[in-house]
């Protein structure tokens, strides 16, 4: 049984311990999982979506379905 004057100190200690464990776990996790590739993928994904929204897909398709003879060195 914890006496009432000691209760705040015990709770504080436990809170501090909890924060310490959480911080350690977070640090450990950040060492393991690399976030940079996800951010890079996200940036390019947004670029691609902007390209789709501007209608660039149709332009790419128009170009890709035509034989560009001069592009392959003929004509």
């Amino acid at each position, binding site marked *: 049984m914890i006496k009432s004057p000691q209760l705040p100190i015990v709770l504080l200690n436990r809170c501090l311990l909890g924060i310490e464990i959480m911080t350690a776990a977070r640090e450990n996790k950040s060492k393991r999982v690399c976030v940079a590739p996800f951010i890079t993928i996200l940036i*390019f994904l947004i670029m691609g979506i902007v390209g789709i929204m501007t209608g660039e897909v149709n332009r790419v398709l128009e170009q*890709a*379905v035509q034989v*560009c003879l001069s592009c392959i*060195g*003929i004509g």
Partner: protein
Amino acid sequence: MEIIRKWVQTIMALLVNGSWSFPFTRTIYQGPLKVVCSPGLNCYSCPAATTYCPIGSLQQLMAGIRLALENGQNFFGLYVIGTMGVLGATFGRLICGWVCPFGLIQELLHKIPSRKFSIPQKLNYLKYGFLFFFVILLPLTVVDDFGYGQLWFCKYVCPAGTLEAGLPMLMLQPALSQTIGLVFFNKLTILIGFIIWSILASRPFCRTSCPLGAFYAFFKKFKLVKLRLNEENCTKCEACHPVCPMGVKFNEAPEDAECISCLKCMTEACKYDAIHLEVAGLPLGSQSGMKTHRPKRNNAAA
């Protein structure tokens, strides 16, 4: 692992060149799949090509940027660059090793018995020049009277285009042979040069001239899937050096831009579990799970 890789390369080459109706239609595939980006270098004027070539499309967009803007179309190549970037940030040059059809062709050519030569490291930087000048700057700046640029890399350099599109189109439409000139013979000479070079050296086009490989190489530090060196286990025995088809000395430069993650160093060379594959920093396919960990070799004994 090498057999699996060859199978993946073959399947991917067939997927991006999956339209086999060209002997009857005598032209290229024109279906909706052509909005899908080919991860590797594969000419979209190839009669069997089902996807678009990112390098060809990027040049087309750069060459026509003035006309597009004049017509009120904001085409800056964002869709193409975005797609290439997502592929690059996910796999990096792993695509060169596992997916690219022209990489597969070079590897098969290199199997022809002959004396083998190495490629000087300095030539590796040439491909960045091709990417910057031939794919972006020249199509963007050198324009005709109508404001339209040329596809410099496709027109004057790309041996994949000559092999996959130029020669097959000449066979399908013999009348085109009347229109060939100096540009075609120049490209044919480049193709023959790379074929001979591929027999004598490993993947010369990928290492010296491929602008797509150069683009993917920029993601060497930020790619999701990469090979990692465990320095604690590495004995510096250099067994990973001779097996690498790209001339990477993995134990000295584990984040080398030339690494195509073919996994030869991991599966065929390293006996000390010093190389593993990781996804977003998390180890995957580490040898520790596949074979017994051997103790560190004594350097004195080595």
